[in-house]
């Protein structure tokens, strides 16, 4: 009787143990910064960033799987040009208009993973869907840097994972066609720093 009870309890605990291996993280909005770069007039590469992003990710080291969801506030786009001077509008204001990110109508862009692939013990690529301007297209993010450990800012009380990811897409796929093909390039390269705090 006692033996069967132990077996029963163990059987009940097994799924809980498996679930416990999935670690959930909340994105740190102040250190998760998506940057982008795009060709300008065929002469130079212009860079910009979004000042506010949020989201979450999960990781299961044992099963080598995970998920990622990032929400980027498009109205926080910045290329460092926010002083009008003698001009009617700044480049950042132009980027927020219907010509580019159309932030009034589409205040957020999102990335949701569909699968995470590992190289060794660390996540290597994240395949998913980017939704921008109401259009959803596949996008693969390459994790170029990844580390997990205690956060020294909290004397190790908080556990975090962080790193960098890269990717690229064609903006025309999302209907962002202003300035194509010569003034502003179609290919947009992404580079992102990210942090997540274990929940």
């Amino acid at each position, binding site marked *: 009787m006692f033996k069967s009870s132990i077996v029963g309890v163990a059987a009940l605990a097994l799924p809980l143990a498996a679930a416990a291996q999935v670690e959930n993280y909340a994105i740190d909005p102040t250190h998760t910064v998506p940057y982008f770069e795009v060709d300008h007039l065929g002469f130079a590469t212009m860079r910009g960033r979004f000042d506010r992003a949020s989201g979450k990710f999960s990781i299961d080291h044992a099963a080598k799987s995970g998920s990622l969801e990032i929400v980027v506030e498009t109205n926080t786009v910045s290329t460092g040009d926010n*002083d*009008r001077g003698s001009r*009617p*509008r700044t480049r950042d*204001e*132009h980027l*927020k*208009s*219907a*010509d580019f990110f*159309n932030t*009034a*109508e589409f*205040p957020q862009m999102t990335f949701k993973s569909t699968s995470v692939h590992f190289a060794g013990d660390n996540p290597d690529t994240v395949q998913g869907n980017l939704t921008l*301007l*109401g*259009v959803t297209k596949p996008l693969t993010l390459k994790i170029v840097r990844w580390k997990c450990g205690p956060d020294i800012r909290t004397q190790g009380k908080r556990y975090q994972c962080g790193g960098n990811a890269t990717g690229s897409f064609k903006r025309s796929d999302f*209907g962002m*066609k*202003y300035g*194509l*093909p*010569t003034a502003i390039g179609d290919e947009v390269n992404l580079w992102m720093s990210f942090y997540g705090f274990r929940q």
Partner: protein
Amino acid sequence: MQDLLANPAVQGGVAPLAIALVLSLALRPLKLEGLSLIAAFAGSVYLVSGLDFTPLTSTRKVVVLALAAPVVGLLVDFAFKPTKIGAALIAMAAAGGALWAFWPVLAHKPDNLPWLLGGSAALALAFLGGFALLQLAADSVRAGAAALALGLGAGISSVLSASVLYGTYGIALAAGAGGYLLPQMIMGRKGQGSASFALSFAVTGGLIAAGAMTLAQLPWYCVLVLAVVPVGAMLPVPRNAPVWLQAVIASIYSFVIAGAACALAWPSSQQT
């Protein structure tokens, strides 16, 4: 060739002007030259951003409504006579169209901005639609002059408001109006006045201004000033003057109002 078609001057100026010129001459025997304007606008839209309609964004709704306006105009031209009741219905439909296009975006604006901006857009479109139908549909020269000034005014003030896309659309509308006016000025004969032309320019021009207000930074009062641009085209012109002179004078009147709208857009742009 692709580089040429990608040039903004071609997309917003040369191409719509050429399309409107050719079509206004070709359709003149059929008394359908009023359709040349929207064909020119559609040609510009195709070159600038493509004629895609999914997802149905506010800007794409503008294009849908611009394409629908001449269809309604044709019905008026061939099935009905413009009446005050008809004009009131058209005005309400135009206002409803503006809200259909922009309210989903405006509703998310803070405080009382949705009502102020939505009201401005609806009022502007209602006035433009009703006025164009009642006062300008019968006179192709005055309507052409109003369209020229409204397109340029909406286009330039859109550029000043941070949207080159809407600016190009507005200038394309003006180029189309130029292509509609030029044959009349050169031949010295007025064309067939039509509701299809009047509604095309009024609805499209008004929506471009409202779009620049909603999706860029055009002040709401500029939209209202742009809405009265066609009134300038109704000011007196010498009745016996040649057609080209009538067109020039009516255009100048309208340009003054359109210029005022642009001037109002400029100082506001200096405020950060």
